[in-house]
């Protein structure tokens, strides 16, 4: 018996150049899996996240998606790799090797390379584990100060090894299927008629554009409820449109270019377009999948990044003050002052005021099909102009003071609904012996402190209504309303210990309290995790999809090599050859990337309508979103560019 393992090692040595990329992507997959599992095992990370079941579920789902994807990627690139070695494999068969034996040989090769990649991936994972944990904790915790211990996550090593051994076995089986499909006779005409040419279909092209267009149209609707409701149809439309485009539409486009003789009869176009359209059938599904995955990945990362950048602003949009509480002032204030003193943090400003309510008669309004009513339960928090301005001066929002004329009122509502302002403006508020008119509406920065709506009145109107008993200090159930105290102090988002102390003091002794720090760290935990996952997932998707394209092109190069040989015989020079190769390979990387990014741009528009327009307090939040997303698109394009050049180099070498 020939020692298959000897032959396997030789083959690896001989095919070293091709194996390098394969080895690289395999190691990277292992690294990803290990890092991820090690994060789950890491004590500090689990203390920070895992206690919350939602995060645990999020991490788990993410892990499963990644592993399934990695598995498909590995099997698919392994199959391409085997096809690229068709000649070699057919020669073994020609000289008497049975398919089972060839399968065994390839399996041994996979195992050797795989085990080395496994060791390397885990090794690098261990080496960088401190860094990955630190990145995660750093972007998701406000003030992570602890020292991350360097440790080897035994369970992660164990599970990663098991998962990948299983994947290697699947790769072996799937490789055997590929070999079984080889016909020996193909060895001698592999390059001649490996694939059939497809003219594509004009119907597929138009239909695919219609489907995608319809999806886009739904995604750019202004109405956020409609966009949310249509999210599944949008996905179905765009994804099916994308596949249809690559399956039938793209061939048609190429065919149309071909028919445009003026362009097509230029040698370079003639050669490269013919080669590309010849190849398109085998790569159409890959390109469509990559386009969809790119869209998902770019959207995920752009969303995460935008959310992340908007957190701090969002904290004060919601909480407005560094800290506030109502009720229990007598009991807690002394302790609060002491806490600040002990932590040596200066209080910049503080103010305590009574909370007032009123329930004037006001017609209900109907907006977006929902009725908004005003009654005893849905009452107003009411302020005099001077009190309101004083409170806002303690807030962190840099608002201009408001001025309300006698007989008028400013209305505040926390949920931002489009069209609210015009419906409310001019409405009358009927008190027992006085009527006020709403002349201003604010949707942001209102100080409701437990109520749903807010009113700000002129000081004299406020006094008169208080005297007439319209404005009271008891809630609808007869309980007296507490006073509210607001604070502004130095570095409110920095000191975890102070916050812990304050929470300890306020908890249970006050009616209700909020600190900006709490809100900030909660948002960071969620959004930071989302951002981290988006980032991690995108890195995996980008690298894997790009290297999948690489493998497919390398396989193609083996088959196309002979065409270049012939073309050279009939007089193609190096200059032309270089251009042909560029035109042959560039679209393979460019088209899925561009389709993916365009999808993502529309997805970000939908995300803007649903989330960001409420989060980012600027006129046209979509521009901000696009600018953040653009950074990520750029990174994506850069990675694809690098892979394109690697592929071009390797492809040129093979067809030489």
């Amino acid at each position, binding site marked *: 018996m020939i020692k298959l393992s000897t032959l396997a090692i030789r083959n690896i040595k001989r095919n070293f150049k091709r194996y390098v990329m394969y080895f690289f992507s395999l190691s990277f997959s292992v690294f990803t899996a290990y890092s991820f599992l090690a994060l789950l095992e890491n004590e500090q990370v689990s203390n920070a996240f895992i206690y919350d079941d939602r995060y645990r579920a999020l991490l788990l789902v993410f892990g499963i998606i990644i592993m399934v994807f990695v598995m498909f990627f590995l099997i698919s690139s392994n199959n391409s790799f085997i096809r690229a070695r068709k000649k070699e494999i057919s*020669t073994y*068969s020609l000289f008497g090797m049975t398919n089972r034996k060839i399968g065994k040989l390839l399996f041994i090769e996979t195992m050797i390379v795989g085990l080395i990649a496994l060791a390397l991936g885990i090794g690098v994972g261990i080496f960088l584990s401190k860094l990955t944990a630190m990145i995660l904790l750093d972007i998701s915790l406000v003030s992570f100060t602890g020292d991350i211990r360097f440790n080897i996550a035994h369970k992660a090593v164990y599970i990663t090894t098991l998962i990948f051994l299983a994947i290697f076995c699947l790769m072996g089986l799937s490789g055997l299927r590929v070999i079984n499909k080889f016909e020996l006779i193909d060895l001698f005409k592999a390059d001649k008629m490996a694939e059939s040419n497809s003219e594509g279909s004009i119907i597929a092209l138009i239909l695919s554009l219609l489907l995608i267009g319809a999806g886009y149209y739904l995604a750019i609707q202004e109405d956020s409820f409609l966009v949310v409701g249509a999210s599944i149809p949008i996905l179905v439309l765009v994804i099916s449109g994308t596949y249809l485009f690559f399956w039938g539409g793209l061939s048609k486009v190429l065919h149309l270019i071909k028919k445009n003789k003026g362009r097509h009869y230029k040698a370079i176009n003639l050669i490269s377009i013919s080669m590309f359209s010849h190849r398109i059938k085998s790569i159409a599904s890959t390109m469509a999948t990559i386009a969809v995955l790119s869209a998902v990945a770019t959207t995920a990362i752009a969303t995460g990044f935008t959310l992340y950048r908007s957190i701090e602003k969002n904290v004060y949009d919601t909480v407005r003050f560094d800290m506030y509480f109502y009720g229990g002032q007598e009991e807690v204030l002394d302790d609060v002052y002491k806490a600040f003193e002990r932590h040596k943090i200066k209080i910049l400003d503080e103010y305590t005021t009574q909370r007032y309510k009123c329930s004037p008669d006001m017609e209900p309004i109907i907006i977006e099909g929902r009725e908004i009513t005003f009654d005893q339960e849905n009452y107003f928090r009411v302020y005099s102009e001077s009190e309101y301005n004083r409170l806002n001066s303690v807030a962190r929002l840099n608002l201009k003071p408001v001025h309300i004329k006698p007989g008028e009122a400013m209305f505040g509502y926390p949920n931002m609904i489009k069209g609210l302002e015009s419906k409310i403006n001019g409405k009358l508020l009927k008190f027992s012996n006085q009527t006020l008119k709403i002349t201003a509406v604010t949707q942001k920065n209102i100080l409701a402190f437990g109520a749903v709506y807010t009113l700000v009145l002129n000081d004299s109107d406020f006094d008169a209504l208080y005297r007439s008993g319209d404005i009271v200090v008891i809630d609808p159930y007869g309980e007296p309303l507490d006073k509210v105290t607001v604070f502004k102090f130095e570095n409110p988002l920095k000191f975890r210990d102070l916050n812990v102390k304050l929470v300890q003091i306020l908890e249970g002794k006050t009616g209700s309290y909020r600190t900006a720090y709490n809100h900030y760290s909660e948002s960071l935990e969620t959004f930071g995790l989302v951002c981290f996952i988006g980032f991690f997932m995108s890195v995996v998707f980008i690298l894997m999809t790009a290297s999948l394209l690489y493998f497919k092109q390398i396989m193609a190069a083996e088959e196309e090599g002979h065409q270049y040989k012939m073309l050279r015989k009939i007089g193609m020079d190096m200059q032309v050859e270089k251009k042909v190769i560029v035109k042959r390979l560039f679209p393979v990387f460019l088209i899925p990337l561009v389709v993916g990014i365009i999808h993502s741009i529309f997805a970000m528009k939908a995300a803007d309508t649903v989330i960001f327009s409420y989060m980012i307090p600027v006129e046209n939040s979509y521009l901000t979103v696009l600018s953040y997303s653009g950074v990520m698109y750029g990174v994506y394009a850069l990675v694809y560019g690098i892979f394109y050049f690697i592929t071009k180099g390797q492809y040129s070498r093979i067809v030489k």
Partner: protein
Amino acid sequence: MQILKAENISKVYGSKKGSKQYMALRNISFEVDEGEFIGVMGPSGSGKTTLLNILGSIDKPTTGRLIVDGRDITGLSKDQLAIHRVKKIGFIFQDYNLLETMTLKENIILPLAIAGYKAQVMESKLHTFAKDLGIMRILDKYPYEVSGGEQQRAAACRALITNPKLILADEPTGNLDSKSGKDLLELLTFINSEYRATILMVTHDVFAASYCQKIMFIRDGEIYNELYAGDDKKQFFDSIIDVMSVLGGEAI
């Protein structure tokens, strides 16, 4: 002794559903005895390669039976055919089909290695044939480091090394210059006489064909004529040219 028997071999190309069916071989029957050196000639597209591929079990006939060394191979599975090939048949191709990733030596011993021979046996076999074929000097080189003629010698050596009953050669001189071509033909004649190897060689080169003892002419997938070499080589040469001109085949 009979080494090969083909009975009513036909080959139809194209899918059964598709309209574009093409019959490349029609009911071909013939026999080959041990030690014969047979040439197969015919115009381009007449089915020579198809025939050779079927004889070498690289391709399967659509109908008909093929008996090699007393065994009917028509019904064998892919894996059984692989073993059959390595035991019974040696191939020499127009474009050599050497693996670029292996040295000539490794290429040559590949069939033995696959069949599971011991290292010493492989070495000694390699030694004998390589010496006879005059390629000892270049054994450790890679295919791209040696000339076409030398590559074809190595390929011939690879075909011989398993002591096959039948050597199939498809236009082996097609890519060689006339000097190397002549060397290779002399080599094949030497193999034929020295090792009593049976050789079937496809060629459309009349000069190459004149080395054979017998020529089978094929036209449109059918055997058209057979010629035997007599004592007079010149006369054999002339008769080949006569048949070829009738067939309309070009003598390149």
